[in-house]
């Protein structure tokens, strides 16, 4: 007994896509192989069901959305300000402005530079006997 027919072969057979040689070989195999015959019947049944489906019509809203030109900034703003969305957009804008103004009014987050640390680092880079940094050793408490 030859090996069973592959799924691809059975699918091609159901779709009528086999060449004459393949078709002859498949039919000869199916006559002697009940398993493959059953599978071939199932492939044929599925093909029949798909073929029986009528053409589907896309919803109009989907067609309009897909075919519509890309929205411009002005269009986006207009869309955001349409209907109840205008209140949400207005609220968010007002909040952003308020936060920015508060940030400008608040004192900046300054901190004292670590000058003494830097001076310590500086005297470490040249501490030979000819170092001119000797006086820097003497002055601390910056």
């Amino acid at each position, binding site marked *: 007994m030859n090996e069973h027919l592959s799924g691809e072969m059975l699918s091609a057979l159901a779709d009528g896509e086999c060449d004459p040689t393949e078709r002859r070989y498949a039919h000869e195999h199916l006559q002697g192989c009940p398993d493959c015959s059953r599978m071939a019947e199932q492939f044929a049944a599925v093909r029949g069901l798909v073929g029986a489906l009528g053409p589907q019509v896309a919803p109009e809203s989907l067609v309009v959305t897909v075919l519509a030109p890309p929205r411009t900034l002005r269009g986006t703003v207009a869309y955001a300000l349409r209907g109840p969305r205008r209140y949400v957009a207005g609220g968010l804008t007002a909040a952003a402005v308020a*936060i*920015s103004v*508060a*940030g*400008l009014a*608040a004192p*900046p*987050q*300054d*901190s*004292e*530079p*670590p*000058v*003494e*640390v*830097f*001076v*310590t*680092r*500086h*005297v*470490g*880079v*040249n*501490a*030979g*006997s*000819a*170092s*001119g*940094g*000797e*006086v*820097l*050793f*003497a*002055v*601390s*408490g*910056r």
Partner: protein
Amino acid sequence: MGPSTSRLLPREVATLLVCMTLAASGIVAGATGASSAPEASEYLEKMAKAEHATYRARRLVVYLADPQSAAVLEIHSSADGTFVRAEAGTDVTRVWRVPGHGLTSGDAGSFEDAAPPAVPLRTDEVMDKYDVTLGEPTMMLGRSVVPLDLVRRADVALVERLWVDRETGIVYQRELFGPEGDMVGISTMLDMDWGEAGHTETYDGPETSKVVAAASADAPERLAYGYRLVKGYRLEAEGRPADHWVYSDGFHTLSVFRTDGDMSTPPRFHRLDIEGREVWAGPGPGTWIWEGDSSTWVLVAEEPQLDVASLVAPFPSGGPSLLSRVGSWWAQAWHWLTDLVT
């Protein structure tokens, strides 16, 4: 004839005397200029070599301007490296330097450096920048020392006088001068033991902040007064990342630090208005800070009488822009919000 001779003779003698005087002064000047410059170079070469001499010494350092302060330095030097312990009141700073490793420990922090910069004394650069003249030798701690006056050619300012051991090149005394010619700092040898570096301390403090060599592509290659960029580093100071750019003029070292963020003025710094930019000068010699490009900048210099305007000119200045402030605030608000949520 006689009268004319009597009139002419003094004129000739006078002319001769003037010529002789001019010639003599020319010879003297020539002799001074011809022999002192090479001699000064020789002393500078000796000083450069003396950086690896073996000795143990103590030095007294006094800063005479505001705020008056003093420190005692204990120096252990050998070919293996240098250790300096500086005590100024209750502050103690210690510096270890061996080839390929540097460690600095002070009250303000400790840094460890796997690639400390090589900032050797460069005689040719010193001679280019300064007019170096020698004075009369004298005795200091039993050694014959000669004074080297360093007059900066750019502004003809006497900035330093070094008393150098004629034999070894060790600087026995260093005097720094202010713009009025007044002495603003002095560092003098208290005692000196030759031939032995002595026992040095070992570091047993908390974990050090590691300094890493870093790119310095945005650092100016050259600054005023002949300072050239030697190396760039990345370090952390009090939790703030900072860049450290090391400059040298062949003799002095100058550091520029850049750290993120805006600054508040440290106490005891006073504001200077320099050609439209705000710079704050610190107490003691050579410390200036300013803001620029959303960073805080700190410049530390050793050389006296520096014009800060020309030094800071290549660096950005000015406080944060309006946009930058709004951006910072939004970032801060976002940080608070995420903290609140998490």
